[in-house]
């Protein structure tokens, strides 16, 4: 399971509670769902500031797919898409 936060998000901080510092994918999900490998994916997509990202969406897509191919094992791959609208 790879969790990908939205643009300008943080691969760890976006999933973490600011007060308890508990991270949903790390501290809770592994206890409830076994037999999965949980990962988060981070990418530089800062919208403001000096470190403003210059990648295009196609660049993000290519890098993401490449990282998955580098990391994946031989088991099935599926896609779960979630939007917040």
């Amino acid at each position, binding site marked *: *399971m*790879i*969790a*990908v*936060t*939205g*643009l*300008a*998000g*943080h*691969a*760890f*901080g976006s999933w*973490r*509670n600011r*007060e*308890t*510092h*508990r*991270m*949903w*994918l790390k*501290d*809770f*999900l*592994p*206890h*409830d*769902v*076994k*037999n*999965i*490998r*949980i*990962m*988060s*994916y*981070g990418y*530089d997509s800062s*919208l403001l500031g000096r470190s403003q990202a210059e990648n295009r*969406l*196609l660049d993000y*897509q290519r890098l*993401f797919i490449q*990282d998955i191919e*580098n*990391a*994946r*094992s031989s*088991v*099935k*791959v*599926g*896609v*779960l*898409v*979630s*939007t*917040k*609208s």
Partner: protein
Amino acid sequence: MAKQILSIEQPSHALRKAMSQRRTRSAAFLDLVSTTLHIRGRSTRISQGGTSASAQSSSKQQVIDANPKGKLKQPLDASQLAGSSTSVTTRSGILAVGTGEPRSDDPPNSNPRLKCFRISGLPSSWGENDLFDALHAIDPCLTRQDYQPSLNPSCYSSTQTALLNMDRTEHFQHRNHVQVSESVSRSAPLLTIDSHFYNLTPLNVPEGEVVAELVIVVVRAPDAIPRC
């Protein structure tokens, strides 16, 4: 078996309609990812124990609301996930994740200055004590109380990746690479420290045989994206 735990369903009508009407950059990104993996338009829901959507709807659910001000909403905390039948669902019913048991070790209100670091390149033979020795050589004031790492197998190699919450950041936040001295470890590994978490980060140690890999793409800040 994870096969029994995870069920895959078709995307909701609301999602299809939203993505066709609002061609935002985020929607285009999701399309690109889905198309490349040749699994476009597939599953949008995880449910535990193979329960159906209707069964899930009868249980207690937490809805992630879109923030009208465009501010990122807090991730779910322990209290939100506590309970025997709590699930997480987006407004369009896209993502639901199973139950969260109450954790007795949840800190009531931890140090707000805590920052999480990712330390990559740990030898597979290392344990928490080995990592502590290496970090203690960088910051001699580091104590066991500051130190509660989780070590997980790396996504890319046979090494390990550690996640470590620390409020003592001054010795680590500007270091990218740390060469461990031979006095600490004979293998003298080169550790990589960062807090940006770019690329893949392992978050757990899989138990048993991994039977499926899934990708969750979550767009959490739609208002940060200019609408076309």
